[in-house]
């Protein structure tokens, strides 16, 4: 075994955007053979049930191996809670093996879960039985007729398999393919009905075994080399940085469109078609067709399949009810139900996604855990082209979608998700009438405050979302950031693949070709004038406005000025502004009130009859006598120059502000961004309006934002 790998103490490296990773231990086989008892830092990814606290679950998982919860707590170095679920701990090789044994969690993690993520599809296979003795990943490759020489590395894989990353644990196969074409081919080989139709507790036997067996003999001589190539002890997924798609890659276009339903559809068709041929290219064109034209037959089959699935879940739940008592089995079954329901939800969303090609953009942006980054970048072009024809249909579809969700609601689990979905549906249906409007009407509307009610979309964030300190999280270490840019800078430390210009580039807003939807925000505080329930509702312009408004109006003022000890603020920027002039109130009214700003004094004077600004006697003396001659002499010059001092005139400013507002409206913000972690850990680097508000122009937006609340308070 290579000495290089044995030197690795942390054997798990990068994983990008991964949802539903069930327990998978990243262990080094090489280490295991050489130093079985030496403890090393291992990163363990677990599939965590929705309901459980991540830390508690991690500890419980580890306690099963280490013996006690205390020991587990000591061993854990870090909990990964946001992007994916897992922990890092110092473990010996034997402990790793123990952890990786599937029976720790009973039967629950048997099955195939695949999740589309941008251009890639992740597969998780659990192999039980005779296949465990060989490397299934290699076997799979062999079954496709691909040969890997010992010199080839993952990155040099043949084109058809480029992006195929696989690695087997003792009995599992986890792999990822890059594009949907490969995914389709995979799915044709793997007969999926078995996975879902049989009792999930039953043993896995799937047709993959056939090709595996067929090829096993032929490839046996190569096995050892290839398995070394694939570095079985190393992370089960190695991400090529070029494949980390933040949605900026236009050229991939529709082939990568929404993988979930594509795969599903192919999977379903596989039953009927029984395609055995391996050199077909038609699936990819079929994919395109699927995307372009909605197929009601497909939809029907999808739905009936889901129905079937729900019945299965019902059965399991019934069995739980009947066999009360046995705690171990109960927990396992609960997990099973959770997994199944999650799957159902994903299927529903993707099915709905095929239904609503036009709203998808809004939907996906509103539901980041489900959406794919690539979609946002690619969809708008076509979507906007087709927009007008499809528009009447959309309403019907949206309501259909709504019903679907309601159906799902009765299923019971996944409340959080369903709520979010409902939200997003509400938004979608709200957004539909807007598309009728000629957006140009608002382009020149200098004052966003005059928007007629109903001409804009209203979003309402929850209190927790508003007060969340961070909005961007690292998928690897879970660290939170306020700005996307900071996150990108941070990511550089995780490897060279994050240092490419593409990875560092700011996610561009491709929606420019699409008419901007005016988005305004509502304060979650009921009774507030900024709340959408209020009779004289005045919407907030940007997310930053919402944040500042909420903090100023509905939160405690926790920051106290250190100088005067009396003034309190809830927004730290306000405090800083105040501290700049605290104790130096120079604008005084005749009534004795002091002001720190001239415009405030004048506003006060305008408001109260008979009040007038007071004059500083010292100042007056100075201005009264000095420099008359010089002032007089230079007057001409001053006036000549006067016009040029402010070459950037007011209208320019106004314009830039305006543009920014529009940007805000387009920001892919959704209330679900903050739920991303709860849902499953797929964080698609939400390109929310925070990007905008914290961009270099943020001071402008602060200006505009702060203006609105002031008005309202007056």
């Amino acid at each position, binding site marked *: 075994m290579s000495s290089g790998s044995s030197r690795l103490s942390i054997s798990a490296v990068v994983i990008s955007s991964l949802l539903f990773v069930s327990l998978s231990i990243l262990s080094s086989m090489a280490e295991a053979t050489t130093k079985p008892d030496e403890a090393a830092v291992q990163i363990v990814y677990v599939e965590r049930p929705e309901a459980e606290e991540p830390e508690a679950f991690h500890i419980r998982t580890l306690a099963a191996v280490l013996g006690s919860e205390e020991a587990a707590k000591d061993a854990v170095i870090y909990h990964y809670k946001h992007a994916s679920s897992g922990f890092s701990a110092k473990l010996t090789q034997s402990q790793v093996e123990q952890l990786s044994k599937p029976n720790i969690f009973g039967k629950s993690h048997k099955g195939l879960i695949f999740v589309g993520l941008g251009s890639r599809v992740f597969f998780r296979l659990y192999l039980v039985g005779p296949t465990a003795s060989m490397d299934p990943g290699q076997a799979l490759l062999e079954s496709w007729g691909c040969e890997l020489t010992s010199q080839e590395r993952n990155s040099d894989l043949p084109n058809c398999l480029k992006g195929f990353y696989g690695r087997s644990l003792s009995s599992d196969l986890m792999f990822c393919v890059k594009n949907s074409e490969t995914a389709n081919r995979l799915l044709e080989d793997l007969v999926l009905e078995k996975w879902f139709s049989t009792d999930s507790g039953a043993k896995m036997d799937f047709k993959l075994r056939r090709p595996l067996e067929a090829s096993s003999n032929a490839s046996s001589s190569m096995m050892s080399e290839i398995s070394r190539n694939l570095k079985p002890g190393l992370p089960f997924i190695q991400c090529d940085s070029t494949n980390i798609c933040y949605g900026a890659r236009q050229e991939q276009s529709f082939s990568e469109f929404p993988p979930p339903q594509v795969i599903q559809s192919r999977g379903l068709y596989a039953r009927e078609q029984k395609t055995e041929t391996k050199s077909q290219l038609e699936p990819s064109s079929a994919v395109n067709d699927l995307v372009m034209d909605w197929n009601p037959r497909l939809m029907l089959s999808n739905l009936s399949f889901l129905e079937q699935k729900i019945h299965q879940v019902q059965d399991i739940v019934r069995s739980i009810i009947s066999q009360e008592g046995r705690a171990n089995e109960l927990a396992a079954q609960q997990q099973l139900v959770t997994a199944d329901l999650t799957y159902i939800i994903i299927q529903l969303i993707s099915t709905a996604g095929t239904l609503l090609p036009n709203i998808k953009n809004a939907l996906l942006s509103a539901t980041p855990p489900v959406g794919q980054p690539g979609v946002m970048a690619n969809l708008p072009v076509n979507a906007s082209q087709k927009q007008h024809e499809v528009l009447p249909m959309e309403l019907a579809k949206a309501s259909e979608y709504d019903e679907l969700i309601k159906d799902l609601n009765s299923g019971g689990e996944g409340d959080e998700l369903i709520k979010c979905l409902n939200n997003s549906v509400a938004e979608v249906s709200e957004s539909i009438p807007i598309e009728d409007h000629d957006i140009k009407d608002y382009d020149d509307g200098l004052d966003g405050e005059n928007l007629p009610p109903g001409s804009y979309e209203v979003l309402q964030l929850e209190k927790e979302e508003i007060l969340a300190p961070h909005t961007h999280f690292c998928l690897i270490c879970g660290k939170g950031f306020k700005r996307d840019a900071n996150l990108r800078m941070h990511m550089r430390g995780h490897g060279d693949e994050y240092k490419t210009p593409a990875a560092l580039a700011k996610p561009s807003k491709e929606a420019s070709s699409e008419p901007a939807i005016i988005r305004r925000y509502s304060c979650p505080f009921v009774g507030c004038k900024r709340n959408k329930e209020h009779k004289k509702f005045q919407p907030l312009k940007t997310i930053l406005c919402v944040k500042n408004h909420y903090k100023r109006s509905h939160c405690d003022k926790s920051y106290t000025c250190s100088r005067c000890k009396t003034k309190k603020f809830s927004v730290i920027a306000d405090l800083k502004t105040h501290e700049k002039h605290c104790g130096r109130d120079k604008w005084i009214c005749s009534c004795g009130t002091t002001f720190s700003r*001239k*415009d405030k004094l*004048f506003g006060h*004077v*305008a408001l109260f009859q*008979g*009040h*007038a*600004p007071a*004059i500083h*006697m010292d*100042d*007056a003396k100075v*201005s*009264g*006598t000095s420099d*008359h*001659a010089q*002032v*007089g*002499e230079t*007057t001409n010059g*001053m*006036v000549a120059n*006067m*016009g040029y*001092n*402010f070459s950037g*005139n*007011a*209208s320019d400013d106004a314009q830039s502000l305006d543009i920014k507002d529009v940007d805000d409206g387009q920001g892919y913000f959704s209330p679900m961004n903050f739920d991303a972690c709860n849902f499953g850990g797929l964080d698609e680097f939400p390109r929310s309006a925070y990007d905008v508000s914290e961009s270099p122009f943020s001071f402008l937006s602060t200006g505009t934002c702060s203006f609105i609340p002031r008005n309202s308070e007056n």
Partner: protein
Amino acid sequence: MQYHSKQEETRREGEAMERAQQQSSDSILATLSVDLLIQILDRVADPRDRKSWRQVCRGFLLAEALRRRSLRVLRREALQGLLRRYAACLERLDLSACPALDDHALAAALAAGAGLWRLRSVNLSRASGVGWRGLAALAKACPHLEAVDLSHCVGVGDREAAALAAAAGLRELWLDKCLGLTDVGLAKVAVGCPALEMLGIKWCLEISDIGIELLAKKCQNLRVLDISYLKITNRSLQFVSSLGKLEDLSMVGCSHIDDAGLQFLNNGSNSLQSVDVSRCENVTSSGLISVIEGHKYLQNLNIGDCFPELAPLFLSKLNDLRDSLTVLKLDGFQVFAPSLKIIGLNCRNLVEIGLSKCKWVTDEGVSELVAGCVNLMTIDLTCCHLLTNKALAAIGDKCKNLTCLQLESCKLITDKGLDCIGTCCLNLEEIDLTDCTMTNAAMKYLSRCSELKVLKLGLCDKISDEGLVHIASNGKKLRVLDLYRCFEVTDDGLAAIATGCKRIKNLNLCYCTRITDLGLKHLSCLEDLLDLELRGVHYITSLGITAIANGCQHLTELDLKHCHLVDDAGLFALGQYTKNLRQANLSYCQVSSMGLCNLLSSLKCLQDVKLVHLTRVPVEGFESALRASGGRLKKLKLLTGLRHLLSPGLIQMLQAWGCRIRWVDKPLNLVP
């Protein structure tokens, strides 16, 4: 609009008083009752006659005092006595020409005339010595004060404005070029004087949008507002547009204002009658269209030097104003014949048009214009180089009421063109022919216009005595005559002018190098002469100056620059006779420190004096002369070299009195 009282001057002479006292009490005139005297007085219009009236006797003086409503004070010493005498009935007081007026003098005078109950208007323009104490005293002494003019008092700031704000009844206030004024001062005025109707804050560079906003909120009665050259933005106009009674808005040279701002004015109030947006670089026709749409009764539109070309839409919009628009100024535009034709068609009631420095103004265009606008009285064609006699023929043909014609630098116009004007426009009062190629024949044609008051012939070097004889033959009403660089003019021509044009007030003879003392002696019979410019007339000596000083005792301005032969004797004469002399340019004259000292100490009205290159005056001479001026000087021009030679105390003292010194950066050659 402008508050500049046109009341006649009061000239009070000490001897006259004595003579009046010596009148025998049993004179028949003394028996007439006061009301009868007042009735007689009402029929005496001429100020000079009124002066004679005052000098008749004490009774007549009393009657005059009871009748007098306005007073213009020329000497500080007389202020107190005058106010005491006229306090009862005086309504308008002009102190703008009063030298060395300071807080103390003003307060003392107001105290002397205690109960200036009827005083409504005070002009303190250029009274740079007046501060907040004086203004506070003024506001206190005159409860009915309605109008105050503080324009060009560069020292006026917020405190002064605050003192003035105590006069709550103020309706009219001019604060042009009060450089110390800020938003706070304006706010004081706005809060203190809510009845304000007219306000000028031109050149008050410290004022910003915030001040204008408060002003518009507090003074809703504003009718006239001048915000020229302020650093204000469109936001100000948004608030200005809320002034429902605004009739006259001047915003010359507000470079931050653009069309978006003007659109605020289109708010349906329909009140504006006069708009001046000249030199607003960012204003274009679309902004003006919105103004025209919002204000249908616009009479006066000045859009000079805004944007280069007239948009057709704007011209057609002028049709909306066809009944009301009387004054249109388009200075600096590119105006083609079709545009002028449309103006002629759309603006039939136009009385005044300004096309100064417009490009592409042709005979055809002017013909089309006057064909439509037959009521034109004032036509400004300055620097319209393409015009020929045909244009003048068209003007003469159509505009019979023409009173003012500006033709400066229209080089293609010849005598023949003026023939048409002279025959057709008999009401002509003012004509500017500067830099035109006119000859004496043109003067012959113009002599038909008996109403002529202003005649400018600068740089017309072919005009000679013969031409002046023509002018003098029918120039009884001539008040202003400009003969700048008319080299051919000699003493004989001046003799003709002096006999024919007795009422001349302003006479410019600069660089008419053939004039000698004899010519000045002829001019000395022009009693009304106020302003005489003799720059570069080499041959004149102190003799001529003495004659002028003796004859033209009302002289207020005199330019003797480069009159190398004028020496102390001339200055002595000026100091003795021209007591009203306010402005003098003595640069390059042969004067010594003696003459200078005498002049500056004896002329109690002298406020502006230029003393450059007086090679025969030593530093001590300047020092003593300036000390002798006693704080009356407001403007002084000296060589930079003197700056360090003069004692700092003196310079400080001058500046404390409100004197602005201009230092000319030229080499200093002093007598050792």
